[in-house]
């Protein structure tokens, strides 16, 4: 290298002496290594690594005073020393940061088992929840959900359902009438009038379920309510038979109790009588407590019977079809219905039916999901 700086005086700069650089580097490295925490390290950085007064920084400012050849040599030495110090600093910084972070996480530990239920807990009523469930099962089969009035004319509740004019179910001790009784408006005793309305309103074929509240002149006690929930189904089509009814009831049971005993519960029919179906049957459901096959003699739900009474069903009586303008020679169909209270009571071990209509939040919140309060 030759002479562009030849005009410079060959000044000796003390800071840039090799020994000085090495000494400054070693001091810095020692202090970096000795820094016990991030604050100390920051202090070291100011004094030894990057601050204006740091020896290596000061030395770099002196570089320009050196003649070219000396400057290059000093520059190399200085760069090497600075790199060593910076690397040591970065490494130390990483170590101390990690230590600090770890300490903070330890310091910030809390008792996560402390209850933290700030948001209020709510729940669906078990009966309305099961109505939704039933609706889903049947909607999946292609049914629609039909609805009708709770205060209903007697023609829909009785006449159209083939109930004889003098049938005891029409009497005041069984059925609640609205004033004036001459208008024959009753609180529906079953959701079957919705079936009648469905047949009158909808084009054939009809596949509907009718969930809803129904009313009987029963005084309230541990096993009776004057108001309870029912779900009925109706299918009217060409070629429907009792075999289709059996299949539908089994599918209903499997769907509604899909998470009980692997969805294996089946139904059976027992002959019975209803004015609006012929043939008629009662439906028994395999016990969801013990499975019923074989029955557990000590089962609290079925008392060892293996079956629990579930509801009524049958082939829709030709008289009902006629009253709704459906040709019974061409169309057949089935209907079924079950009360939901007893199922809910057995499923959830509810001992007193009055709890269903009492409105106590403790009852409701039992359905708010598992976990401590």
């Amino acid at each position, binding site marked *: 290298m030759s002479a562009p700086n030849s005009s410079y005086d060959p000044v000796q700069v003390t800071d840039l002496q090799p020994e000085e650089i090495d000494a400054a580097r070693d001091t810095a490295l020692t202090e970096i290594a000795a820094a016990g925490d991030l604050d100390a390290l920051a202090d070291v950085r100011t004094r030894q690594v990057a601050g204006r007064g740091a020896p290596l920084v000061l030395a770099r400012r002196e570089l320009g005073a050196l003649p070219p050849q000396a400057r290059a040599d000093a520059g190399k030495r200085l760069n090497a020393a600075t790199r060593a110090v910076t690397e040591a600093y970065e490494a130390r910084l990483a170590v101390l940061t990690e230590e600090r972070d770890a300490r903070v996480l330890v310091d910030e530990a809390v008792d996560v088992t402390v209850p933290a239920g700030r948001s209020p807990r709510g729940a669906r009523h078990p009966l309305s929840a099961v109505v939704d469930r039933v609706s889903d099962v049947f*909607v999946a089969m292609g049914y629609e959900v039909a609805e009708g009035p709770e205060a209903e004319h007697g023609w829909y509740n009785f006449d159209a359902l083939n109930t004889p004019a003098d049938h005891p179910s029409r009497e005041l001790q069984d059925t609640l009438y609205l004033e004036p009784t001459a208008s024959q408006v009753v609180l529906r005793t079953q959701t079957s009038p919705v079936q009648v309305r469905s047949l009158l309103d909808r084009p054939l074929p009809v596949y509907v379920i009718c969930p809803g509240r129904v009313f009987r002149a029963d005084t309230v006690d541990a096993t009776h309510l004057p108001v309870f929930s029912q779900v009925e189904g109706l299918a009217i089509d060409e070629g429907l*038979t009792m075999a289709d009814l059996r299949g539908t009831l089994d599918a209903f049971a499997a769907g509604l109790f899909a998470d009980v005993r692997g969805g294996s519960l089946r139904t059976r029919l027992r002959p019975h*009588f209803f004015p609006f179906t012929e043939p008629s049957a009662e439906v028994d459901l395999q016990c969801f407590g013990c499975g019923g096959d074989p029955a557990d003699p000590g089962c609290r739900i079925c008392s060892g019977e293996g079956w629990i009474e579930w509801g009524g069903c049958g082939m829709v009586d030709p008289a009902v079809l006629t009253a709704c303008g459906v040709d019974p020679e061409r169309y057949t169909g089935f209907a079924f219905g079950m009360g939901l209270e007893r199922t809910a009571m057995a499923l959830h071990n509810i001992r007193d039916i009055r709890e269903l209509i009492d409105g106590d939040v403790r009852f409701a919140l039992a359905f708010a999901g598992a976990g401590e309060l």
Partner: protein
Amino acid sequence: MRVVHSWLAELVPGLPDAATCGDALTRASLKLETVERAGEGLEDVVVGEVLDIEELTGFKKPIRFVQVGTGAGPISGSPISGSQPRGIVCGATNFAVGDRVPVALPGAELPGPDGKPGSAISARQTYGRTSDGMICSSRELGIGDDHRGILVLPPDTPIGVEFATVIGMPDNVLDLEITSDRGYALSHRGVARELGIAFDLPFLDPADVDLPSLSEGYPVRIDDPSGCSRYVARTVSGLDSAITSPPPLASRLALAGMRSISLAVDVTNAVLLGLGQPLHAFDLDKLSGAIVVRRARPGETIVTLDGEKRNLVAEDLVITDDSGPIAIAGVMGGASTEVTASTTRVLIESACFDPVSVARTARRLGLPSEASRRFERGVDPALAPFAAEVAVRMLVDFGGASAERVGTDVDLTAPPTTVGLPLAEAERLIGRGYPVEVQRHRLEQLGCAVEVTGTGLRVTPPTWRFDLERPADLVEEIARLEGYETIPVRLPRAPAGRGLTPAQRGRRRVADALADAGFAEVLLLPFLAGDVADRLGLPADDERRAAPRVANPLAEDERELRTTLLPGLLAAAARNVSRGNPDVALAEVGTVFRARPPADHAPEVPGVAQRPTAAQLAALDATLPDQPRHVAVLLTGRREPAGWWGPGRVADWSDAVETARLLARVVGTRLTVRSAQTAPWHPGRCAELVATGSDGSERVIGHAGELHPRVVSEWELPPRAVAMELDLDQMLARIDTAVEVPPVSPYPPADRDVALVVAAEMPAGQVIAALRDGAGPLLESTRLFDVYDRIGPGERSLAFRLRWRAADRTLTAEEVNELRDTAVRAAAERTGARLRS
């Protein structure tokens, strides 16, 4: 219906055990409720003879020390020889030396009445004697409820035999549920016939007795053929009224649930239970003139067997003689012609009365009886003369009577009708085929006469099957007897459905959203007391006063149907608070009822022979009250719970209003909140909820806010309960389905805060509306972040953060400032707002 197994076994020889019978009957539609074992615990009861009676004196009541012989030979299971007389202390006095009585030996454990635990018998000291056993009443033996004295057995009862064998014990009683279409099964005859079919065993019809040829008997006239299709009268004389029913008969009646009263009455009951024919026994000597069956005349009365004087009405069917009514047909006999201890001549009535007539009268008089139950369901009209003959024979056999060689049978029975059953009908309804021979065989088993033709069966049902009128009725019988379990299982393929309707989905979202928001869903009874409207402070003309009334309420003080969900929630909240749960958040989704103005006259009720016309159906619907579905919530106490994080938050009016907004949001209805004054809310803290329809029309669908302090204290709730109620149907009818997504802008927003001073009574909602209108279409959001009341008298300050954003550019500061100024001007013009300095 209680049926006795041994009785059935007499009619169906080879009958299996009771449990097997029960299963078979359940499958055959006569549902088994329970099986009771009867006559257990009688192992150490034997028949003894009263040998000597010593009357003990000096006690408060008569006490006897009785020597009883129990015959020769050892008693089974007893170490004591039976040959020695044993002394027994007894408090009853209805027996004499020579009588045969049941003797419970020491070691016996008697069953006790009604299956209750009875007493263990041992030799013991009492009344100064050693009582070596006990002589028993019916009740102590668990075979009846007669406890008036010792059960005295017939004099020919062998001494020393086990008592159980005397009365046919042990036995089983099956309690069956009989549906209203199967009146024939309210008898051992009917049940036994079903069992014969079920087990393919011969059935010995107890009504199959030879009728004697008789000359014309007691004069009988049927004046009302619609009420009485047949009347048979038979007479016996020389009845020894001292004779009581033989123990096996009394015991059988007891097992079937009827008390032994007297031989004549017991015989009629035995025929009723055995054959299903209700009979009535008149004291023949108390009759005067011909028996006439007719409707009652206005003003007529009768004193019935229970001693009650009954007023009769014109639809009541009565049995009369020259003295007037002597029995209410099929319901209850009269006192004036009752069979008593002095009766020697008896007229047995065996008749067939109209079901509807009997049912109405029994119900009107509150006199349901074993007889009326059977007539209501229909009694076999062919049975009457046979039942009378069976009764006469029993009175002759047991009561020493002699049958008079006369009899009356007025028979107006209509000939049976025939039902045509197409061959394929069973398969069409059931889904499996039944060969014609199977169909014929099953129908014949029921007692039908069957004729097979080319296309089907011509079936004449038996006289006791009133329910077999149409092909479907016969199909049920074939399917039932072949077994419902033989019906295949098949799933029909329904046409594709449309799923839940938007309203149904909306209701479900509402219920779920309320639960998620911390409300406990409740279902309450819809019956309310008449003073609820007053307690709520509703004005006189409030539509919620139009409560439909229940004509026959379950409780006199709860005869109105709810017109609002709030009273139920108030009462439920009060129950919770009184049970120590002060923080309550309840929600109910349910129907409320609003009476419509009454029509001038009730509409004509359509028939059922065809579909009613649209006008007829509309007329029926017009009779119904309005029945909208409402949703309501009620909060008292804390809305957010207290805990280590802080004191929680007490529910206030805003929680009620916010719940309405939440529900509108989840279903997608545009809801505006305006201040209002409506009972039962606090007049200064009540919002009306206004839904906007797709056509822009507005409708008030409900209210929310803090409840009126008077209402809160009326229900004894803690102060400041809040509530919301809205018409869910109306809200769901206004779902805004045409959701348009605004362009999602990538450009930054520009925020400006404005603090406006307005009159204290100026609703914030109006200020916000004015700001929005003035802020132009680029306004993205408005947030009220501060309300400051202490600004000056009659004024308050509302601080808003307004945010603008454009879809296509970054807004300039000048632009935004201009928009802010326009918004503030709009608020100033419409609400008198001024910028807070």
